[in-house]
C-alpha cells in the first residue's frame, strides 16, 4: 500500500540514526516475541508429551540452565534471522527502525548473528546509546552496525542498495507494508 508519511518531522528524520527510547521500545517488543516463541515451544513439547504418554496435559518444567539456554538460543535465532532477512524484527518494524551496516546496507548473516549473540549476552550494552554521540550501542560499535529510522517497506534487495545514497531517503512517495 503506497501512502505518504503525514508527519513532517518524521519525513525529515528518515534514514537518521535512531535514539534510545525507540530502540528500547523495539527491543522490549522483541523480548516479548522471544518469550512467546519459547512459550510456544514449551506448549508444543507439552502437547507432544501428552500425545505420547497420556494425561495430564501440562507444560514441561525445564532445569534453570536449560531454560535460560533455550531462551537465549530462541532469541538469537529470532533476532539474527530477522535482521539478516529484512533488517527489522517485529519490534523494530513497530517502532519504524531498521538495522543496517555502516554503509547503509543489509547485514550479512554472520554479522547479524554476532549482533544477536552480543545482545542476548549483554543487553545493557544498549545503554551506551544514551552516551554515544552517534546513538550507537556497544554492540553497534563492536559489530559495526547502525540503527536508523526507516518507516518505509521495501524488499530486501532494495534495502541492500539504499546505502548507495548518502542523503535522507525520499519519504513522500514511500511505500508501507
Amino acid at each position, binding site marked *: *500500500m503506497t*501512502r505518504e*508519511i*503525514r*508527519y513532517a*518531522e*518524521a519525513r525529515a*528524520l528518515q*534514514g*537518521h*540514526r*535512531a*535514539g*534510545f*527510547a*525507540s530502540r528500547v*521500545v523495539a527491543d522490549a517488543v522483541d523480548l516479548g516475541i522471544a518469550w512467546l516463541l519459547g512459550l510456544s515451544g514449551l506448549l508444543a513439547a507439552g502437547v507432544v508429551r501428552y500425545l505420547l504418554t497420556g494425561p495430564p496435559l501440562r507444560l514441561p518444567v525445564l532445569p534453570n540452565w536449560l531454560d535460560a539456554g533455550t531462551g537465549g538460543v530462541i532469541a538469537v535465532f529470532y533476532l539474527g534471522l530477522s535482521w539478516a532477512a529484512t533488517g527489522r524484527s517485529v519490534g523494530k518494524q*513497530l*517502532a*519504524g527502525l531498521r538495522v*543496517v*551496516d*555502516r*554503509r*547503509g546496507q543489509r547485514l550479512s548473516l554472520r554479522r547479524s548473528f554476532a549482533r544477536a549473540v552480543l545482545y542476548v549476552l549483554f543487553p545493557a550494552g544498549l545503554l551506551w546509546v*544514551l*552516551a554515544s*554521540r*552517534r*546513538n550507537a550501542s556497544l554492540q553497534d560499535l563492536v559489530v*559495526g552496525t*547502525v540503527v*536508523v*529510522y526507516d*518507516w518505509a517497506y521495501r524488499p530486501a534487495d532494495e534495502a541492500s542498495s539504499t*546505502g*548507495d545514497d*548518502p*542523503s*535522507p531517503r525520499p519519504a513522500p512517495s514511500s511505500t*508501507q507494508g
Partner: protein
Amino acid sequence: MQNSERALVTLPSELTRPRTRDGRIDVPRLLAAAALGLAVEAQRRSWDAAAMVAGRVGWPLRVLARPAVAFAQGSVAVARHHLDLDGWAARGLAEQRRVQAAAVRAIRALISALVAAVLDEIDLDQVVARVDLDQVVDRMDLDRIVDRVDVDAIAQRIDLQAVVARLDLDAIVARVDIDAILARVDLPELTEQVIDEVDLGEIIRESSSTMASETVDALRVQGMRVDGLVSRIVDRILQRDGQRQTSPPPRELGP
C-alpha cells in the same frame, strides 16, 4: 306602381280577384278598388305631366317661379305663425312615432310566435341525427389546423410558476399510499443487490489497515520525539556542546 306592388307582395286572391266564390262579381269591392286605382293613376299622370311641362319650358319658367316659391315660403311662414303649424306638426310626429313603436312591437311578437312555432315543428334530435359528423371530420384538414397552431407561443404564455403555486402538493402526497408502494418493492432482493455491488470486505480491510497504520505512525513519531528529548537531557547532563551526529551512515565510513 301596381306592377311593383304585385312584384313585391303576394296579395290574397280575394283582394286580386273582386269576385265571390260562386263566380259572381262583387260590385262594392270592384268599385272601391277601381276608385283607388283611378286615384293612383291620376296622381301618377299628373306628376308625369308636370315633369314634362317643366322639361319643355325650361329655365324661363324656373326663373318666373322663383318669386312664387319665395312668396309661398313667406306665406308658409305667416301661416306657421298664425295657424300653429308647429303644434300640428308635433302632434303628427308624435302620432308617427306611436305608430312606429306599435309596429315594432307587433313585428317582435310576430317573430317570436313564428320562431316558437318553427321550433315546435322541428325535432332537433332528428336534425342532429341526420348530421354525419364523421363526414364533417373527414372534410376537415386537421394537419393544416395543427400547423397553424404555434405551440411555442402558447407555452411561452403559460405562467408555470403560477400553476405550481396553485398545486396543493401536501394534498397530493397525502393521497399517496406509501404502504402499497412498499408492499410492491421486493426489499430483500434489493438489499441483496446492493450488498453484491458493495465490496464490504474491501472497505473493512482498507479502513482497518488505515487505522492500524495511523496508530503505528503515531507510536513511531512519539518514539522519535522521546528520542530527541532523552538525547538533549543526557547531553545537558554531560555538558556537551552541539548536536548529536545522527545523519545517515556515510558511505566512506564503511570498511
